[in-house]
């Protein structure tokens, strides 16, 4: 494989609703800043790849207009995944392996303010067997949390501690809140936001954290056909990405507090690993951006001194599809 480093990153502010910037403007801002951070010009870019969702944006071909923000003239080499931007980064990393281009720009954008995200996510469920039951994402996450409790892998206090650490709150008082979907409480859910993020990848071994490994795997969609108390795809993806040895910081894309516990356990992360120092999705969860943000936050952790950081992205009900990226100081 050709060595690839993360040469620049950028993100917008993440707020509950940002009606002042349209998607094109958000993409323009983050791609410009990420390139500036990398010390590169648009003319240096050999490939562009983005991640977004038409259902999140409420219209077909929503990525077409956002593309205007990246400056696609003269014509560029470009692709798009209908996925979180972390998978756009995977396609860009793959494209750099082809050998003819050396710099790639990745971006992702999403809105929580355009419509009820829970309803949109429910549309991901099997339309023949599961969607008609209309299980909402909080209730699906609660199934996972219940399994962790039943197996003695966690307590409700553990979930509260995750939220307290992410948001700077008091865990004991969080436990006083009523259950919203037992055993989860309203504060166990992600804080949904609008925003965009961008990453610049460059072939080489210097100038930013090195992508030591990147891999992704999907589990069965059907809730009865996999162990909801575990994440085999996360564990196996991490193994393919070079393992967890020496990891100092892990940024896990766990929209619900109990999923932090679940993922840390699936990955076998010890107490020495700092998990989600950024606060993760509990402080800012932008659809299609949140996974890419974990790679960005892991990048920042390495820049701040960590020798190895692990970034994880997830999509689908109950963490169905998982990507792991191992970053090492160059």
């Amino acid at each position, binding site marked *: *494989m050709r060595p690839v480093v993360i040469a620049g990153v950028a993100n917008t502010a993440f707020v509950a609703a940002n009606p002042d910037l*349209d998607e094109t403007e958000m993409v323009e801002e983050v791609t410009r800043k990420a390139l500036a951070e990398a010390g590169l010009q648009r003319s240096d870019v050999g490939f*562009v790849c983005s991640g977004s*969702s*038409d*259902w999140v944006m*409420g*219209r*077909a*071909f929503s*990525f*077409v*207009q956002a*593309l*205007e923000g990246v400056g*696609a*003239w*003269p*014509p*560029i*080499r*470009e*692709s*798009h*995944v*209908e*996925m979180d931007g972390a*998978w756009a980064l*995977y*396609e860009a990393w*793959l*494209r750099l*392996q*082809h*050998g*003819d281009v050396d710099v790639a720009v990745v971006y992702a954008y999403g809105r929580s303010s355009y419509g009820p995200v829970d309803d*949109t996510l429910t*549309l*991901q*469920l*099997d*339309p*023949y067997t599961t*969607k008609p039951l209309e299980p909402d994402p909080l209730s699906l996450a609660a199934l996972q949390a219940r399994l962790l409790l039943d197996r003695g892998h966690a307590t409700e206090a553990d979930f509260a501690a995750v939220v307290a650490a992410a948001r700077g709150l008091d865990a004991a008082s969080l436990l006083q809140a009523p259950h919203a979907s037992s055993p989860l409480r309203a504060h166990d859910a992600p804080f949904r936001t609008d925003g965009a993020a961008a990453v610049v990848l460059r072939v080489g071994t210097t100038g930013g954290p090195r992508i030591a490994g990147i*891999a*992704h*795997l*999907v*589990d*069965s*969609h*059907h809730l009865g*056909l996999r162990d909801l108390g575990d994440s085999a*795809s996360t564990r*196996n993806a991490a193994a393919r990405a070079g393992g967890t040895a020496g990891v100092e910081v892990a940024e896990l894309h766990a929209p619900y507090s109990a999923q932090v516990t679940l993922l840390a356990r699936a990955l076998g992360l010890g107490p020495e690993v700092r998990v989600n120092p950024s606060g993760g999705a509990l402080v800012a969860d932008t659809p299609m951006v949140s996974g890419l943000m974990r790679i960005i936050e892991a990048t920042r952790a390495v820049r701040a001194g960590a020798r190895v950081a692990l970034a994880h992205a997830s*999509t*689908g*009900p109950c963490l*169905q*599809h998982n990507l792991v990226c191992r970053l090492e100081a160059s």
Partner: protein
Amino acid sequence: VRPVAVTGIGQTRHAAKRDDVSMPGLVREAIRRALDDAGLDWTDIDAVVMGKAPDLFEGVANPELFLADAIGAVGKPLLRVHTAGSVGGSTAIVGTHLVGSGVHDRVLVIAWEKQSESNAMWALSQPFPFQPPVAAGAGGYFAPIIREYITRTGAPEHIGWLVAVKDRLNALHNPYAHLQLPDITVDTVRASPLLWDPIRYLETCPSSDGACAVVLAAQPTGNNRPAWVHGTAMRTEPMLFAGRDEVSPAAGAQCARDVFAEAGCTPADIDVAELYVPFSWYEPMWLENLGLRASGWRAVDAGETARTGSLPINASGGVLSSNPIGASGMLRFAEAALQVRGLAGAHQIDRARLAMGHAYGGGSQFFATWIVGSERP
């Protein structure tokens, strides 16, 4: 980068409504045929790449997630590509890179659309913020561009009718094709209703349910002869700015130059091509844009693009005969590969050694091409 072989190809019977199958059933019909062609089984596949056009077409968000089981992706990497109408081509190219780079040895790419689940005209006509709504679907968007081509080149109006007839007669030799119109003639095309000037009813593509699957591998698999990927390219330009030439987009021309450069050949070397022609006039337009002919309409008029001509275009019947949107691009790539494998059946063109597959999407702004050959590059 190592050479990539196309060792398995499968497609569904395409129809307006495939009420006999679910979405999983539709994609499995194509995949099973591709695996059989490749002499492989589900467990032999290392990774899956799925492409389709907007999820609004079926009313399911990110359907690759619920289809993961049906397409044999569980426990494997699964990517979902969406680059508008060019997506079938882009999906095949991502799969090619997965094998060529050495990341995986055997990759399944699958593209599909089940348009009967929804209303494509509605899904295609969602208004963009801050822009006047067109609300005319694809035909309304492309008709003025076609009119401009006619104005520029002085092409006579029967050119579009000739293409409409040619592709539908070609489709009679393709058992998978949606439209089977044995009685079509230039007169019936001319007499069909004018939908969006200058496009007549019989000059448009159908709305289809269908899927296409391709197995890409580092080595030949099974007993059938593979095609070899000689080059791939993707190019994109913005939809909205005054400097664009929508009749002959710079991105399309650049995409062709890229793919010829990577394949190390010239337009004159291409024996057959499968071009993305959803409206008849796009055949002469793409012939010029891709550098295959200096005057596209004169080539059509002279019969050069017919099955018996010097450069057969869309011997399969093309998009004009089957259009499951997300799969249409991959069908072009797959049909090009079938030709150089000698496995195109009744629509096989003799002595096809090098073939081009082409797809475009959005407002003539997303392009994907590949060149495949019978010989290992």
